[in-house]
């Protein structure tokens, strides 16, 4: 496994941001998270969400996605080959897990914003990819089914951003992440099979879903 991230998407390049998450500032924090996710990548966005928080005391499950640090070879860290390449590892959180908290709700909402930002970045790449690739003598981006799929993704982002800005209810947040998972898949499909190669930037969408799985209690949510 690679200890160092090797992806081509921008990541870990933003200075560590301390977000102001006071109630009145949460929308601004969410917008900042989306910006970081879009411009600096998933790991940088996750770092911004978690900075200053006690991960082990808040995480709802036995593992919690965290940005990789130089000492992530420690026994309490679980690795995943795709997440490794995004600069993300999974910290083991021992003991009985805490009930849902305000902190967890904030993390859920801000992580959703990061994920939407990552998706925006991938959608930009997908549109460029579809504009370069021809089928039947015209760029794929001009095919109605493809144009419609792009529109569905960005319209979905617009809607889910509002959900991320407004919701702190655990069920609504669980639903939000499930919908982002789905939208991520719709985005990944725009790259065709090339987006299913582990070294492709679309890898971030698979890892994004894995991160959300550790920070979102989604019991009962689903299709």
């Amino acid at each position: 496994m690679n200890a160092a991230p090797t992806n081509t998407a921008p990541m870990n390049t933003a200075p560590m941001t301390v977000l102001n998450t006071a109630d009145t500032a949460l929308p601004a924090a969410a917008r900042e998270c989306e910006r970081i996710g879009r411009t600096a990548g998933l790991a940088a966005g996750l770092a911004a969400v978690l900075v200053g928080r006690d991960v082990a005391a808040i995480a709802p499950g036995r593992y919690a996605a965290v940005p990789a640090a130089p000492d992530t070879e420690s026994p309490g860290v679980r690795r995943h080959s795709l997440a490794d390449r995004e600069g993300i590892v999974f910290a083991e959180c021992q003991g009985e897990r805490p009930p849902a908290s305000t902190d967890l709700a904030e993390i859920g909402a801000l992580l959703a914003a990061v994920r939407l930002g990552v998706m925006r970045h991938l959608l930009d790449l997908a549109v460029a990819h579809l504009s370069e690739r021809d089928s039947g003598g015209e760029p794929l981006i001009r095919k109605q089914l493809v144009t419609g799929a792009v529109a569905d993704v960005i319209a979905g982002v617009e809607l889910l951003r509002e959900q991320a800005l407004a919701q702190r209810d655990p069920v609504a947040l669980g639903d939000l992440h499930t919908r982002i998972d789905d939208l991520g898949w719709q985005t990944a499909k725009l790259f065709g099979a090339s987006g299913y190669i582990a070294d492709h930037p679309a890898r971030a969408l698979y890892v994004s879903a894995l991160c959300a799985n550790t920070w979102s209690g989604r019991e009962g949510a689903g299709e």
Partner: protein
Amino acid sequence: MIELDGRLRAVRDVSREAAEQLRALAQAIDTDPDAMQAHLDTEAYAMVRISNTPAKYRESMPGRQLRLLDEGNCLETVVGTLELARGDAGALLACPSPALAGVIVDLLGDERQRELFYTRLHGGRTWTFFAMTEPGRGSDATAMETRLERDGAGGWLLHGEKRYIGNGARGGIGVVFARTGRSALSIRAALVEPALVEPPHAWHGQRLDMVGLRGAALSALRFDGVPVRGDMLLGEHLPVTRRGIWGAIETFNNMRIQVAALAVGTALAIAEYVAEHRKSAPGLQLALARAEAARELVYEAAARVMRDPDNSYLSCAAKLGATRMAVQTARWASGAMSPAGLLEHPLLEKWTRDVCAFEFMEGTGDIQRLHVAKGYQAGDADG
């Protein structure tokens, strides 16, 4: 609804036993798809390989009593594939066996070519490949650029590139589709043995590192003037209209349903895994009901292809529906377990990646949608 008769039930039951062995290999193959040596003597692999080999070309295996799948038609193959994928689709696709190349060799090959192909697979150490898809072209055969040029001595030289070819880089023998000219009828299938290519550097194969379904060992292939003897082109003994790709339309409808069967088998595996580890998971019965409905559609599509081999309507609808259902089932399962459930259940996490592969195999969802709409407009939904 298709009632499984005694023959189909036998195929299903034998496949279920083999599926347990595939399940046991699933995570190791996902972790390192190149480390296959330790798995090659698995009985399930011998069963799959021998079952898919015509009786006259089967090797003798003294001392081994294999239960074979008695698959003689599309529906029987689909029933078997679905149950094997319920064990693990990645482990199934990692099996050295005739697979799709065998279907084409059976259809277009002459007696000598069939014997060469199947004999080469004896011992269970030889993978096969079916090289159709090209970089940037998807599986659109009409846009195929790989070409066979005459070498002036009765043979051909193969030039071009293929991509996302299962077991391509490790294949010992397989089929490469290429053009001998500009017309649609000029797309031919050539039998190639990479290890015998001279000069060796004319053949380049590299496994691609994929997100999921890693047992399939999808590969990129490049041919820089690979010599192909004249008698290695399949279909020379057939009429011009039946010797190339258009003689194999039935095969493509069949392949599409096989992919749908892989998707349904994986979805059932996911739902049943959740049932085993979290009986009270919300939505469990619904997930199972949806997977079972997709299974029925896949069976129906197989029966339709047997009645009307050239009609793609229901095979496309089945592939479209089964693939979507499998992705939805994986997403449901991600939320149905406790938080971080995917980290605690690596097999489930693997399947959530694997199900995405089916979208890209044998035509994407958009391609299927276009075929389904065309078939509907032609009245195929009432056929």
